[in-house]
């Protein structure tokens, strides 16, 4: 299966591009999750409720 991907250069390049794209999305999401959990209680979206009424919609962070 792996060799099938390497055989054609076009497929090989496409694999690397999609792989990189998928990896960075996953990597970023995982790390952001860890980072925000690590700093829980200090970030704006954690403390927002202490100062402002309402959950706030997309336009009003």
């Amino acid at each position, binding site marked *: 299966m792996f060799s099938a991907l390497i055989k054609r250069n076009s497929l090989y390049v496409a694999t690397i591009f999609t792989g990189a794209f998928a990896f960075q999305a996953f990597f970023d999401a995982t790390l952001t999750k860890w*980072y925000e959990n690590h*700093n829980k209680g200090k970030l704006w979206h954690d403390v927002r409720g202490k100062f402002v009424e309402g959950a706030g919609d997309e336009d009003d*962070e």
Partner: protein
Amino acid sequence: MFKSSARLASPWAQRAMATTAATVGLGASYVLYQDSMTANAMTASEHGLHPPAYGWSHNGMFETFDHASIRRGFQVYREVCAACHSLDRIAWRNLVGVSHTASEAKAMAEELEYDDEPDDEGNPRKRPGKLADYIPGPYPNEQAARAGNQGALPPDLSLIVKARHGGCDYLFALLTGYPEEPPAGVVLPPGSNYNPYFPGGAIAMGRVLFDDLVEYEDGTPATTSQMAKDVTTFLNWAAEPEHDDRKKWGLKALIITSSLFLLSVWVKKFKWQPIKNRKIVWNPPRK
């Protein structure tokens, strides 16, 4: 082997060595003597007392700012420091998503008037502020600022945390470091106040923070040290607005580069394995 080193150097070499030693000795004495002719009174007090290292909650490689503290600090800046200090590099929009919502920031901007385009006859016009406007300072220019502060210029606070040795620790120590009385024997120039953390000890800014000077929205007791901590955190954010993102990117960069490094070590070993382990045998041709 020992013979040559045990042999005495030639008289010429001996003389050369003695001359060199005498020259170096005399030169050093001269330099030391010259140095003793001037006295530099760079005492600890002239450098300013070094601040203690405080345990900021954003100290550390992966620690973000405390955003509730940024918001309280902004309130302190606005109600206290903004009477004298500008904050030129911060626009209202910078606060959005950091310490305020977009509508709050917009409302604060709209309370102020900014210069607008002139009308068709060239008369200057004013308009309410918007998110893209910068926070205005208290004085129109440096001369006005000096005139209002007995000749001393209150520095712009946007980058002050980066602009002082000790950063946050210095600022906090400075703001909370005004003793009731200057120590005995200290003579201050007129219009200045004693603060051991300020280099020289005589600062034109008096103590500005006193317990319960502001009233915090979240009910945090507004002690002097709480306000100093909050305004310092706010000013640290103002100087490094990229701080939280920077640390997250740093973490990502560390993970990626260290895995690539380990991978390269493994690849190197993998490729060199057969080369390092091979045995080269030479069979001499038999006659």
